[in-house]
């Protein structure tokens, strides 16, 4: 595979809004403290359904983060995004003045599964109930799946690259890969990349009826714990998480500190819903990412997986990782942050990446809360409840979505690259 880059892509900032923290540093701390964001749902009624918990962001007062500008035209999905984007921009030193300056163009590549299916549904329902001439124009503007990315661009003046990527649970890592490719290709110098997803009734009912949520098969116990022997589905969640990716030279010229590097990325697809295809797609995504990074399986120091408590996907992802990395995968430290955050769909990959920044900084990888020991068939035996100290140079984040999208992203600690051979 030909290398598609001369430019290095670095991370100069991050922004997060999640069920357990509203800052990147806060996220890492909360994960390492074992804090869980899963709680009884208050955003909507779950009456008649057998699952009642989610990673709901509560309380969420947008004004606390966004000031006094008009939020009426902006729905919950976009509000979550604006909070994370504002943080990431500020963290990377992109002041409003810098953004307004003519030659600076900051972009946004946003992963999302639905954008706001709630807004779409409410727009439809109001038109049905009151007649089409009383449908809400504001809601229609927010009913396209690239609406959140557009709202953020307007709010912050992000005139650079702007794309929306949908790959279910893998949207976030795919967005990071896409943005990395654009920066390497010289089409952008600074791009926010990650994802957003809102918790809403429509999404919840859909996931419940699809049998993906813990407790959605009538079980009395809800076990949304990654790799757990009795896991029975995930807990849905919401969030927004963005990295500020920049061309390394441009970042150096701006004089901003580098938090980490995006060293490699890869993606693949599982056409059949089988273990062979699912694990195979994960393995291929990882191998492409490693080759892209100029690294080998032996260079990976720790893992951040997308495992969420899904009966099948957790296993297939783990098998795929073990296939790609070989026998040493069994002992690698593993973070599975959905144990505490829940499944935030389009936001998940961004959350995984932002959480890893903390590990790359302080060498601490959070344990998998609630996991005494992984199920016997999970090859990643290093997954457990205890936090682990890691020599964090290269971290591998992976994702396997329920519908077959596999993504892998390799992050490197600052200065990790200088120690690497060919």
């Amino acid at each position, binding site marked *: 595979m030909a290398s598609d880059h001369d430019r290095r892509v670095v991370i100069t900032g991050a922004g997060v809004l999640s069920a357990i923290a509203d800052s990147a540093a806060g996220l890492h701390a909360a994960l390492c403290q074992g804090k869980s964001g899963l709680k009884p749902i208050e955003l909507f009624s779950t009456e008649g359904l057998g699952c009642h918990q989610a990673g709901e962001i509560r309380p969420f007062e947008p004004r606390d983060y966004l000031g006094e500008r008009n939020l009426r035209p902006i729905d919950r999905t976009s509000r979550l995004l604006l909070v994370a984007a504002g943080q990431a921009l500020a963290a990377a030193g992109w002041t409003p003045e810098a953004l307004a300056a003519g030659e600076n163009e900051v972009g946004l590549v946003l992963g999302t599964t639905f954008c706001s299916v709630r807004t779409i549904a409410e727009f439809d329902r109001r038109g049905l109930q009151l007649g089409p001439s009383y*449908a809400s124009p504001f809601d229609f503007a927010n009913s396209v799946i690239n609406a959140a990315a557009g709202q953020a661009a307007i709010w912050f003046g992000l005139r650079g690259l702007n794309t929306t990527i949908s790959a279910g649970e893998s949207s976030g890592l795919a967005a990071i890969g896409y943005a990395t490719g654009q920066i390497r290709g010289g089409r952008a110098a600074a791009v926010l990349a990650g994802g957003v997803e809102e918790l809403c009734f429509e999404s919840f009912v859909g996931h419940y009826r699809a049998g993906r949520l813990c407790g959605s098969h009538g079980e009395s116990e809800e076990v949304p714990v990654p790799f757990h022997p009795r896991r029975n589905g995930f807990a849905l969640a919401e969030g927004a998480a963005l990295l500020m990716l920049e061309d390394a030279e441009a970042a150096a010229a701006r004089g901003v500190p580098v938090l980490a590097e995006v060293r490699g990325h890869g993606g693949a697809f599982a056409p059949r819903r089988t273990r062979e295809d699912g694990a195979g797609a994960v393995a291929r995504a990882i191998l492409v990412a490693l080759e892209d990074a100029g690294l080998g399986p032996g260079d990976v120091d720790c893992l951040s997986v997308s495992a969420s408590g899904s009966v099948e996907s957790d296993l297939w992802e783990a098998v795929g990782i073990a296939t790609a990395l070989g026998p040493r995968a069994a002992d690698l430290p593993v973070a599975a942050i959905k144990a505490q955050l829940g499944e935030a769909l389009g936001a998940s990959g961004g959350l995984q990446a932002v959480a890893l920044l903390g590990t790359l900084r302080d060498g601490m990888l959070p344990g998998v809360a609630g996991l005494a020991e992984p199920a016997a068939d999970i090859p990643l035996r290093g997954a457990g409840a205890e936090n682990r100290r890691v020599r964090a140079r290269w971290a591998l984040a992976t994702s396997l979505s329920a519908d077959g999208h596999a993504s892998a992203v390799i992050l490197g600690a600052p200065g990790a690259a200088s120690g690497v051979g060919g």
Partner: protein
Amino acid sequence: MSNNIEEIRTRIKQIIANVAGLNASRITDDATLRDELKLDSLSLLEIGVDVDLAFKLELPDERYKEVDSVPAMVDLVQQRLGELAPQPQAVQG
């Protein structure tokens, strides 16, 4: 809904305030929508929909496109409510 002009104006200001993300008290009786309140085309459309719904006017969009101020909106609503009010019955005989 009463035709009382004060109530109409108050309600209209509430609707505009809601769409503009402002406190209604910050909207003057003669405020212009595009210039003073800086409302864009989408916001004006949203206001038109909300006003029409609130007062049950059933007016076409074109009528709202001509409105660019609080007084103009008040006039429009008052006039339309007058048109819609039941006519007094002629006395027979």
